[in-house]
């Protein structure tokens, strides 16, 4: 613009010299603030406590690989289908760019990590969703990876454990993402009819098409404390029924109260409780 010629951007007329106070400031990442109780703690200590707040037990979101570390016997995890990537089935404008951004941001190829491993010596197949990638939404790759993981569990005759964290179906894949609900549920039915053991652990958040498919189909449906779990979004429900919803609506505790879960389990106890269930079903359920 011509105007720009006359009004040059003003240059800063001073230099910034780091003050003593700034130097004493804590480098980013050393401390973490709990969004629930607002208290500050060492990130290292928080991580050591499996990202459960040391003061109020708030469960911070966990990356999929952190989950593997927290549960699976060291060195036993072998990833499945790590090279499967998203394409754009509907030619949805801007979709692949968003996927690429999340790949860099989260260091993942897609919103679910699948693999085989051992939990205290028990062989299992795991699928772990990661809400940092497109809100953990389910498109073709998520549906296919989970289906293949279930088929792997069927082939190896070992239990299948899924950790869900998802906003639901992936809008940009339209009806194809809807059909992933049918695909994954059909795989679980096949696995189940062979006697396979299914454990679903719902973590924050588990909603929409994911909650209305594999997340709800465990022989044992568990959840982490405080996790948001539900089919329709809170705002949509409030607009539809025109009344305020209770504060604990669609939390893990709410679902437990209404008979939708077997148990709400703290992340700190999860490995013990999973081992407990696995031990009772070894070897991997009653196989037909």
């Amino acid at each position, binding site marked *: 613009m011509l105007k720009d010629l006359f009004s040059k951007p003003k240059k800063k007329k001073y230099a910034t010299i780091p003050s003593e106070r700034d130097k004493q400031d804590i480098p980013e990442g050393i401390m973490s603030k709990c969004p629930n109780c607002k208290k500050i703690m060492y990130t290292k200590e928080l991580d050591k406590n499996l990202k459960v707040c040391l003061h109020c037990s708030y469960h911070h979101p966990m990356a*999929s*690989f952190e989950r*593997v570390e927290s549960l699976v016997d060291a060195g036993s*995890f072998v*990833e499945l289908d*790590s*090279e*499967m*990537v*998203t*394409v754009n089935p*509907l030619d949805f404008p801007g979709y692949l760019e968003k996927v690429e951004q999340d*790949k860099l941001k989260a260091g*993942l*190829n897609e919103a679910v*990590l699948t*693999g085989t491993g051992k939990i205290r010596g028990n062989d299992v197949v795991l699928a772990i969703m990661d809400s940092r990638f497109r809100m953990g939404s389910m498109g*073709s790759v998520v*549906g*296919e990876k989970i289906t293949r993981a279930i088929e792997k569990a069927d082939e190896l005759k070992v239990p299948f454990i899924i950790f869900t964290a998802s906003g639901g*179906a992936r*809008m940009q*894949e*339209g*009806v*194809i993402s*809807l*059909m992933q*609900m*049918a*695909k994954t*549920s*059909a*795989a*679980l*039915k*096949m696995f*189940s*009819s062979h006697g396979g053991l299914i454990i679903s652990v719902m973590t924050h958040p588990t909603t*929409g*098409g994911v*909650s*209305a*498919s*594999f*997340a*709800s*189909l465990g022989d044992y449906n568990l959840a982490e404390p405080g996790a948001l*779990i*539900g*089919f*329709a979004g809170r705002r949509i*429900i409030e607009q*539809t*029924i025109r*009344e305020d919803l209770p504060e604990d*609506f*669609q939390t893990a505790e709410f679902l437990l109260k*209404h008979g*939708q879960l077997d148990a709400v389990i703290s992340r700190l106890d999860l490995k013990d409780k999973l081992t407990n269930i696995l031990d009772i079903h070894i070897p991997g359920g009653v196989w037909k």
Partner: protein
Amino acid sequence: MIGELEFERPVVELRKKIDELKNLTKDADVDLSEDIERLENRLQKLEKDIYENIKPWDRVQIARHPSRPTTLDYISHLFTDFFECHGDRYFGDDEAIVGGIAKFHDYPVTVIGHQRGKDTKENIRRNFGMPHPEGYRKALRLMKQAEKFNRPIICLIDTKGAYPGKAAEERGQSEAIARNLFEMAGLTVPVISIVIGEGGSGGALALGVADRIYMLENSTYSVISPEGAAAILWKDASQAKKAAETMRITAPDLKELGVIDSIIKEVKGGAHRNVKEQAEAIDMVLKKSLSDLLSLDSDELVAQRYAKFKQIGDYSFVKQFTGVN
């Protein structure tokens, strides 16, 4: 024409004009037959243009037409001896889903479908065709009953989606839908689903895990309503028209995407123009489809159904490792 839609207005107006001229020749002593013939030719061309190039958003309007035939309309035309069964045996009877036993050309079947109302009173009773968990559980109960008596199952899909309400969540909307997907995948009898109006999200899919899936030409099937998609994607529900195009929700789209088996042609202007004729078109497809499926044994049925859904999805592979670190 009753209940005309925006996109067909040119046809309606031209037809009105022709009728006017016809009346004029009757009353007055002028011969306009040449003009009338010319206009009628034009009408034919215009009808062809308009009805053969219906835009996605116009199809949405047809699918939502208040007088579009519902499940019960088709049941009375397609089946005989319909006996409606109520209740899920746990909580109640959800009138947003109807189901029962009937005969299709003397062959016993189970038929289940979403049911919306045609006026406000009926819509309130039917909850606008948006089911609660007990609706899905009733449907599942009837499917299991069909399996016991070795009857094929025919599902008619016509819902905006599962009802987003407090009670629905408390009673396990998610679990009810998931359970239907799970159990339908294993049914040992033929299952045929036909989308007759709107196929909205998980609420539609809960009657949709079938061996054959058909859509009426002007029906839609989608993961979310165009309004909902626009609100989420562009934070603007008024962009629903654009969403209807981008999300690919029409019968021709789903055929192309390989999600449905085939499209059932509609009578010109939409199924509401002639229910009987529309039912006949459905009847032909059902007959063929049933006789194909009845030739398969139960293991083949389940295996083919599994393969059918397994192949839906699009992905590729790269040789790189950015996974677990």
